């Protein structure tokens, strides 16, 4: 079969989302009131269809002989499924965002007075089109096996989010945060692009399997990796750390999370983070053909990034009075926790002589993939609740005072907030607890005791500000300066997220298994891509190929 057609057949979910985005964009401009209110339904249908494509592809998709394709298939299916599932919940809580804008209401009011609908200022179609495009970009990151592709996928994830932030609220704050997000994002994109260019320069290829082959050849012949490659990898990791909001590219997080509307903030906390982490896994995969000594600078970089992200995020989180900013710093800190899993994975894959390296790599990456979903659910619930409370000035709830007594005023929202926050702290039986156990466990397995001690201390610090949120919700005098208005869609989305957080915490084993299965194949690919013309004979032996097909 033609390799190009083969490649296309793995892209049905993305193409479904793209088609959905196009339809949304045009339908939002329709003269008919029914049609122009339909983009949220179109978005939901295309997400469901994309999910169907992912689900069927995981079963029916023929195992490819191309090593890189085998490598990412399992990972890609898991990540795409997670994106569809959390994407649907995000869609539920974000379904009202464009309708709340003044220009939408003005345009509808003018139509109601018998005028012709003027589509110029209405952002309904665009909002959901960008929503789908960004999800599509994140999915493409999961399937990337080439640096060019990865670059385009990362940009496709980010560019729509800039517009979503800018148009999510009428306030100047939303536009300010959009401009900060955009400018820092463009700068970060240039940084990781430079990293990609240097990796290409050092290895002569942008394809993952060829980069892996190059690194393996260097490693097998006992040579040090070219400095160009190491510098390129460092720049790429630093640049991509913007997407996951980790130190040193974390500066935007607090302002952007504060400025954007609650549902959009939840989107920012999950989708670009997922795309970023999946890209990091993809980027580090080929590099892990080297041994730990050769890769030491990158491991140190990740270590420092993890420690600083956790510490900076949690310390600054303590000092905030604005709940959205608190959650933004918590997002930075959680990126630090997830980097711990990534370090464990890299350490396992580069430890020499470990035939079972795959399993270890799987552990770190599996923990990371599981935690992404855990964090996505918890943060989604928290931001959804915040989005339901408005102050007297018509602004969204921001401070601890704004949400005071929420537990008494609206018990359901209070419980959702409670579950979400407890999951973020990492208390049993919430999913966050299980996720943290897996993450830190994978790091302990590889001797990163200090890293785990720092991470646990950080979790303890973070409990202070998380409990402050709960304290405000349940033990503070109810604030009568705010209104609580819940639409059924938001309620449903947040409720499902909260129930999911508990259910997965209680019976998360299945998802962990799925995540582990997802993480296992990359190693099969890493082993299989190893053979080179001058590689050792053993890795050429056909039994390796058999192993990877079986997985």
């Amino acid at each position, binding site marked *: 079969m*033609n390799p190009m*057609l083969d490649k296309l057949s793995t892209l049905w979910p993305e193409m479904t989302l793209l088609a959905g985005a*196009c339809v949304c*964009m*045009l339908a939002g401009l329709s003269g008919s009131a029914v049609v122009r209110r339909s983009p949220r339904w179109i978005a939901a249908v295309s997400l469901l269809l994309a999910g169907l494509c992912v689900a069927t592809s995981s079963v029916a998709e023929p195992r490819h002989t191309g090593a890189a394709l085998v490598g990412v298939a399992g990972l890609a299916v898991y990540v795409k499924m997670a994106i569809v599932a959390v994407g649907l919940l995000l869609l539920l809580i974000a379904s009202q965002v464009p309708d709340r804008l003044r220009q939408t209401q003005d345009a509808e009011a003018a139509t109601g007075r018998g005028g012709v609908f003027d*589509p*110029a200022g209405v952002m309904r179609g665009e909002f959901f089109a960008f929503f789908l495009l960004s999800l599509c970009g994140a999915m493409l990151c999961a399937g990337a096996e080439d640096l060019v592709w990865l670059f385009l996928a990362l940009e496709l994830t980010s560019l729509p989010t800039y517009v979503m932030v800018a148009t999510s609220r009428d306030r100047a704050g939303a536009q300010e945060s959009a401009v900060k997000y955009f400018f820092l994002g463009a700068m970060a994109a240039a940084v990781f692009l430079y990293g990609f260019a240097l990796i290409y320069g050092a290895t002569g290829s942008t394809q993952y399997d060829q980069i892996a082959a190059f690194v393996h050849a260097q490693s097998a012949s006992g040579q040090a990796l070219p400095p160009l490659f190491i510098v390129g990898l460092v720049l790429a990791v630093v640049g991509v750390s913007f997407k996951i909001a980790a130190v040193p590219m974390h500066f935007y997080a607090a302002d952007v999370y504060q400025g954007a509307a609650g549902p959009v903030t939840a989107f920012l906390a999950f989708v670009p983070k997922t795309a970023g982490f999946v890209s990091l896994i993809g980027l580090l995969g080929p590099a892990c053909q080297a041994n730990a000594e050769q890769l030491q600078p990158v491991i140190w970089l990740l270590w420092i990034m993890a420690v600083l992200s956790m510490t900076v995020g949690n310390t600054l989180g303590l000092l905030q009075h604005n709940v959205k900013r608190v959650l933004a710093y918590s997002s930075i800190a959680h990126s630090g926790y997830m980097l711990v899993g990534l370090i464990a994975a890299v350490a396992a894959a580069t430890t020499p002589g470990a035939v079972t390296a795959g399993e270890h790599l799987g552990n770190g990456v599996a923990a990371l993939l599981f935690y992404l979903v855990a964090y996505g659910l918890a943060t989604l619930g928290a931001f959804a609740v915040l989005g339901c409370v408005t102050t007297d000035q018509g602004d969204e709830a921001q401070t601890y005072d704004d949400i005071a007594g929420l537990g008494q005023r609206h018990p359901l929202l209070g419980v959702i907030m409670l579950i979400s926050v407890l999951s973020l702290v990492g208390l049993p039986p919430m999913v966050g607890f299980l996720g943290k156990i897996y993450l830190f466990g994978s790091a302990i397995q590889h001797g990163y005791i200090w890293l785990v001690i720092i991470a646990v201390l950080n979790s303890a610090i973070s409990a202070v500000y998380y409990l402050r949120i709960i304290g405000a919700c349940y033990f503070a005098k109810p604030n009568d300066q705010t209104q609580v208005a819940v639409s059924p869609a938001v309620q449903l989305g947040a409720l499902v997220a909260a129930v999911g957080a508990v259910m997965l915490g209680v019976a998360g084993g299945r998802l962990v298994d799925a995540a582990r299965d997802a993480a296992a194949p990359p190693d099969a690919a890493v082993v299989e891509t190893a053979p080179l013309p001058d590689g050792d004979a053993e890795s050429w032996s056909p039994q390796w190929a058999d192993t990877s097909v079986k997985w």
Partner: protein
Amino acid sequence: MLTTLAVDSFSHYAPLGVLLLIALAFGAGNLVLTRVVGPRRLGEVKGMVYESGVNPISSARRRFNVRFYIVAMTFLVFDVEIVFLYPWATTFPSLAEGSELAPLFLGRMLFFVLTSVIAFAYAWRKGVFRYD
């Protein structure tokens, strides 16, 4: 051999250097000549932007209608399409007659153009091309 190539590739630029020098000499020479030979008369009319053209109505530094920016943005996006069409157009005829890749290549480019058509329809409906 490599070094020769490198030196060669630099010597290719010699005509360019000559051209640059001529251009500079021409510009500087004209300036000097008008300064030396030309008559000098100063006045309000003489100082106008277009001395023998239409009278200016206001400062050139006024603010432009925001429509111009929207048109510029639209142009920017559609302009880049060509970058993809051109390499495609140069390779497409070289595909073998009846190759199974031909419909695939054509289909992909048609799909690509279709997305531009959708973008165009969107911009049209949004009123980007309306100037009233």
